[in-house]
């Protein structure tokens, strides 16, 4: 795992919500321009972990976290969450384009909501680039000013990816991005993720073991808030070191 530089390093990361210890002493490094999948049974803390990386957990009442999380060399836990979220984009389980905005405005929403003024030329460029990166441009280029909610579920999800990419994030977090989509739309998103890793570091949570094996370079296995195993996907799937991992992969539980 030393062939590439790490971009995000967690050391001794702990998270409590009120009295519940959700994440326990997580040590993990994520590598640049790789797809890392986080797997584990329901309730193991996968989503909480990924939401810590853009400080979205700050919104939960009673949340406390400790340890360190370095984005490059800066401790992300001490940065202003608003700045963190501009560097670390996120796509959610259910597609959530803004219903009041057109496709065009949805892509630019990050700029609009942060009060960043752009010239018309810059806007057009960003919209085109982002939609092309999200493999949606050809399907929507003639309907850019229609509402984003008119699109199909899979298209909406790609619009959300374009919206996140428009901010030029260093890392893209995907929280079970295909669990609400049909197989065809899922395949399209998976293709897109493989393409995108040349441009951005991707960390994704997935329930789908097959999906992790198809598209991720590295896989982490989380169980009851602890990081059980983390290695190249190949190794995890063929030569795992822990029985828990094996049992999960062979569907004995979870």
């Amino acid at each position: 795992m030393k062939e590439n530089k790490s971009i995000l390093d967690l050391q001794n990361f702990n998270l409590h919500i009120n009295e519940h210890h959700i994440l326990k002493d997580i040590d993990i490094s994520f590598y640049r321009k790789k797809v890392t999948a986080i797997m584990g049974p329901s309730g193991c803390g996968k989503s909480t972990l990924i939401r810590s990386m853009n400080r979205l957990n700050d919104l939960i009442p009673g949340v406390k976290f400790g340890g360190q999380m370095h984005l490059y060399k800066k401790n992300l836990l001490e940065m202003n969450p608003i700045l963190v979220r501009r560097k670390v984009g996120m796509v959610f389980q259910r597609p959530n384009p803004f219903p009041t905005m057109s496709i065009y405005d949805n892509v630019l929403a990050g700029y609009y909501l942060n009060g960043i003024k752009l010239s018309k030329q810059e806007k057009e460029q960003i919209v085109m680039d982002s939609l092309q990166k999200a493999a949606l441009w050809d399907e929507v280029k003639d309907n850019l000013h229609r509402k984003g909610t008119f699109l199909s579920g899979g298209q909406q999800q790609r619009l959300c990816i374009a919206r996140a990419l428009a901010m030029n994030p260093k890392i893209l977090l995907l929280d079970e991005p295909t669990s609400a989509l049909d197989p065809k739309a899922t395949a399209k998103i998976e293709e897109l993720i493989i393409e995108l890793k040349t441009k951005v570091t991707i960390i994704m949570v997935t329930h789908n073991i097959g999906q992790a094996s198809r598209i991720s370079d590295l896989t982490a296995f989380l169980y009851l808030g602890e990081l059980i195993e983390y290695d190249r996907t190949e190794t995890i799937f063929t030569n795992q070191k822990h029985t828990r991992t094996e049992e999960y992969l062979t569907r004995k539980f979870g």
Partner: protein
Amino acid sequence: MIKAQTLQSRLIQDAFFKMAMGVLSSLLMLPLIFILFYIFSHGISAFSWEFFTQLPKPVGEMGGGVSNAIIGSLLLILISALVAIPLGVFIGVYLSESRQGRIPEITRLCIDTLQGIPSIVMGIIAYTWIVMPLGSFSVLSGGIALALMMLPIVTKSTEETLKLIPDSLKEAAFALGAPYHTTILKVILPSGKSGIISGILLGIARVSGETAPLLFTAFGNPFMSVNIFKSANSLPLLIFNYATSPYQDWQRLAWGASLLLVLFVLSLSILAKVVVKK
């Protein structure tokens, strides 16, 4: 297996139930249709160019209109809307954002209580707050009394509308680095726009026919007045005064004013429905 006969009787029961619902619902429409028809047939004869443009004439003189009452009503609605809408929308946003906790709960209780207070009490409050210190009846005090009535309607509809907006939208905005206030102003409020506007329209419709709170605030005035610190006439007050008068000519004006008011409220209600559908 269900026997064929029981199935048959069930189907009949079903049909009967559906029919009963339909009949009862149509019965509900009867009073409204009756009121509309009655007011229309009496009021439409009062409508004329003079009705909308002239002042009321003294007793004995023919003709005259209700222009001062129309202007007065519009002024009252304007003032109450200016006070109640921003306040109501903000309180509604606050309540939908903070669902638990002591302050939201107390606020919610206050809003519910405010909604239940008789309208004449609102008039007394506005009288003691504004009329007494300023020393005269005024449009301002009437507007405040109406605003107190409109406030709970706007607050409630805003809260209810915003509660229905999925949290995922808020998350989407936060994940893009949007600060809290822009998330509310540029994502959450626009998403609930139609519901909020319809609540505002219904609030306006509700207060535009109120008479009791105006009796000792806006008071009434036979002349044209656009000074908000002076008394002025309004449609409900004019109806109240003229309908109880013994003069046929004045009663005719009261019918006309009633029709105007009903048409105004009706169109606001229809507009509110249209806005929601959009």
